[in-house]
């Protein structure tokens, strides 16, 4: 069942029981989460629920109308523009298994990296078997992104989208929405996939978890995707956890080496910094490739101009129209030193790659961690070297090194 003013079931005379302090829609019974006022329209006191106000007002003067849940099988296909990695395929099989066997599952996965694609096969399985699916997140930006990706892949499916003021509704067989929107559903979804489960807003989070359970059918499964699992989540998953914490070849990431250098000062004097030059020399003589990160485009181009002694050097920046061509040439070995101001797309990997970061003191830790994750992505070349050229050691550099060490010891994901 789900609440919808166009439905044909009169579920309750009013959404809120003002005597008992109970909201029939979200089941809130915390009396501090109701607001009572004198309504000039009704000429009497009206009470409404603050807990679920985000999805429209549930109050003591408006009846709660519902519609019966339906299920329908559909032919369901999707398009994937790249092949899943082995570990993604394994995760995907695990999702299908959870849906089929009506189990909960915790996907402990790296933020972003192909997480959405992992659930495609499970969604397809569910829809082809007439199961209602919801893909939800507490965060609106994540919901929008999920909808974009899912509607791009499942071209023939009619996907509902609901958040804040936005409502695109079909029959709720395949729904993408914020967790809040689940308050409108009771015993409706056979499979609820929660992305960024850890991002529950501070206030009212216990209610939101209740919303997931209320919306789920008795035998339905909950699939949680998170980068930071908590004990509560592990318990919810009943020990059924799939971890994509380590990269698939299972090798350690290189710990960055710190070198103190002032590339800018040398540049201003019209010279290539000696340390940078020595590092590049070493990498070239070993027959490897290198990505050199710069904090700004202007500096990158100026340093580029000072690298006449090196062959096969190119520079890319985020708006560069030729970036894909350059990346391809780097992959083929035509370019061996690639200067860049931007992190290349996920999935871009090179063999025999080292990384140099210039003026590392300008970079925040999360960027540095992503940069380090680029190195040694090919099983044939598990660990490349990472060099941080910096004016001084920063808190962000220390945090990066700490994080990589924790990753290597298996205590965390990137």
């Amino acid at each position: 069942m789900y609440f919808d003013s166009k439905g044909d079931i009169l579920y309750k005379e009013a959404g809120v029981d003002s005597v008992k302090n109970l909201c029939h829609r979200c089941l809130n019974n915390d009396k501090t989460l109701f607001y009572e006022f004198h309504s000039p329209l009704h000429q009497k006191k009206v009470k409404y629920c603050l807990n679920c106000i985000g999805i429209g007002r549930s109050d003591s003067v408006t009846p709660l109308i519902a519609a019966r849940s339906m299920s329908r099988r559909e032919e369901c296909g999707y398009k994937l523009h790249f092949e899943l990695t082995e570990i993604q395929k394994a995760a995907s099989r695990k999702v299908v298994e959870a849906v089929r066997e009506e189990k909960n599952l915790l996907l402990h996965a790296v933020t972003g990296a192909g997480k959405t694609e992992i659930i495609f096969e499970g969604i397809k399985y569910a829809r082809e078997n007439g199961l209602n699916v919801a893909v939800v997140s507490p965060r609106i930006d994540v919901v929008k992104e999920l909808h974009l990706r899912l509607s791009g892949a499942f071209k023939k499916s009619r996907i509902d989208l609901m958040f804040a003021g936005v409502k695109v509704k079909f029959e709720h067989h395949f729904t993408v929405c914020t967790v809040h929107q689940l308050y409108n559903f009771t015993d409706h979804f056979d499979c609820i996939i929660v992305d960024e489960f850890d991002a529950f807003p501070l206030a009212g989070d216990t209610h939101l978890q209740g919303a997931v359970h209320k919306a789920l059918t008795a035998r339905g499964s909950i699939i949680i995707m998170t980068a930071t699992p908590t004990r509560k989540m592990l318990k919810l998953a009943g020990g059924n956890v799939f971890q994509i914490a380590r990269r698939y070849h299972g090798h350690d990431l290189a710990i960055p080496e710190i070198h103190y250098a002032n590339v800018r000062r040398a540049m201003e004097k019209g010279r290539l910094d000696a340390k940078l030059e020595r590092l590049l020399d070493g990498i070239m003589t070993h027959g490897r490739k290198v990505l050199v990160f710069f904090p700004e485009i202007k500096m990158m181009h100026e340093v580029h101009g000072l690298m006449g002694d090196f062959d096969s050097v190119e520079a890319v920046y985020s708006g560069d129209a030729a970036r894909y061509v350059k990346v391809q040439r780097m992959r083929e070995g035509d370019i061996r030193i690639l200067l860049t101001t931007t992190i290349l797309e996920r999935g871009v990997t090179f063999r025999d790659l080292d990384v140099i970061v210039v003026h590392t003191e300008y970079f925040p830790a999360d960027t540095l961690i992503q940069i380090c994750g680029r190195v040694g992505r090919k099983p044939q070349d598990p660990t490349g070297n990472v060099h941080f050229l910096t004016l001084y050691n920063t808190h962000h550099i220390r945090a990066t090194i700490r994080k990589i060490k924790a990753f290597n010891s298996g205590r965390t994901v990137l």
Partner: protein
Amino acid sequence: MRCLYCHRRLEPELHLLNLFTAPGPLCGECEIRLKEWRRGERCGRCRRLMGEGESECRDCIFLKNRFPPVGKIMCMLDYNEEVKMLMHRYKFVRDIALAEVLAQFITVRKRDYDHFVPIPVSPGRFRDRGFNQIIEVLARARLPHSSLLETGKVKLQSELSRHERMNSANPFTFNKEYRDVRLRDTRILIVDDIYTTGITVHHAAEVLLHHEPAALDVLTFSKA
């Protein structure tokens, strides 16, 4: 007690300074976020964010040419993302508790004016919304209101194009129930929720200025 904007529990620390004041309806964090003004050059009169190279506010120039002048134009909050969200929840989701939040930002005192005049809502809108969004705020700020104006129009200002708005006929009429109330030489404050082009409050002022008040100022909750 809950923050009426984010619904977080409020645990006010008791100390000498707040021992005798009732706790506000907002947590400190929400208060800061709602009070923030977007950066940029602003019109000294209506506080509109000016375009680049704009030396005089084009809205104020238009109003000066088209309408009789009003006194001060006051505005409590900027229309930042947080305020936009608040207004949406207040007016369209009908989260009327937010009237308490808005009331907290009113600094005008009762003795400053003889008449606080809310911009009216049409009967149709009143039925949909269930309240007049200005009156509810004034009431929670403990300010009396005089409903000197009426309106019957159905179309929302936000549904009109800029051109339509600039040229529309005055939607307000004087409420006959106040026929016998003296307005001459009194101080009137027109109150509206959002000041966009200023046309709405100037239409309201146009009607009231016929009654020759001594002062006629404008207060809006937010400057779009």
